[in-house]
């Protein structure tokens, strides 16, 4: 489905989506309180059918975090970038999407490990790579004088 049709489809399903500028893919930003229900709509609706989540990550913008989800449809072959803003920088929390796309369970554990963002209703909220009492390395204000030699 091409750009214009996809845009109209999404607007009809999710009236609160705002479109952002992106040269490659169609990009929308949604409020984080409704994330789970919006993702369910996007996956189950026949015209959009976004069933394959291929990248889940977070970006630290110094006073807020931005969660980024890259979705594509195996049936219609269109791609969407879904973003949601997490405002609390000290104790960030957002809903999980692991009940919709199973691969998100492990990507969200990685985001918790590296950024400290907690996911509500996650089935297995443990750290993945680092020890339990280590900080969150990919935050911009992270320093580790003992281990890290900065150049």
């Amino acid at each position: 489905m091409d750009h214009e049709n996809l845009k109209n489809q999404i607007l009809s399903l999710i009236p609160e989506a705002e479109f952002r500028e992106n040269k490659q893919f169609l990009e929308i930003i949604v409020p984080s309180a409704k994330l789970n229900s919006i993702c369910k709509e996007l996956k189950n609706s026949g015209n959009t059918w976004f069933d394959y989540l291929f990248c889940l990550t977070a970006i630290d913008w110094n006073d807020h975090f931005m969660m980024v989800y890259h979705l594509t449809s195996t049936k219609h072959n269109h791609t969407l970038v879904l973003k949601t803003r997490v405002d609390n920088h000290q104790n960030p929390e957002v809903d999980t999407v692991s009940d919709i796309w199973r691969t998100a369970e492990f990507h969200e554990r990685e985001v918790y490990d590296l950024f400290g963002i907690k996911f509500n209703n996650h089935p297995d909220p443990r750290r993945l790579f680092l020890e339990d009492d280590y900080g969150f390395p990919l935050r911009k204000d992270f320093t580790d004088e003992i281990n890290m030699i900065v150049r």
Partner: protein
Amino acid sequence: MEYEDFNDNESLEIFKNSKGNILLTSIDNVINWGRSNSIWPLTFATSCCGIEMMAAGAARHDFARFGIEVYRASPRQADVIVVAGTIVNKMAPVLKRLYDQMADPKYVIAMGACAISGGPFYYNSYSVVKGVDKIIPVDVYIPGCPPRPEALLYGVMQLQRKIQTESISKKSEV
């Protein structure tokens, strides 16, 4: 053996032939010949250097002809541990435990830039151990990223020369 005596391979041979009395020298020679010509390594490869270690054991640069006949999976049966690859903070206690479980005499070869000093991950990385000699004592260092299989063979030959200077009467300090 003093650190200053470890100059190059020719002086090592001379050194070996000039220390100790006749009876102990013959026993030393036999024991050292046995130990150095059949060093069995432990299977321990963390990252890219492991592929070059496998290639060194394959058909072209066969290293079974140097005595490294089989790889032992269990540390109790191995003589040398070839640390090939990066060691991170989570893996360091595991490596120390494996080294402690090996039986004497045991040797360590640090293969590749990551095992010598952290390698390409020295700057700006929060979880890499900057050199495996912070955890266990190393006998031979093999530089390269990754070192060629021929470099690994040369390193093993250096280890063999080092073993041949040992003596059962006096503990080697090198």
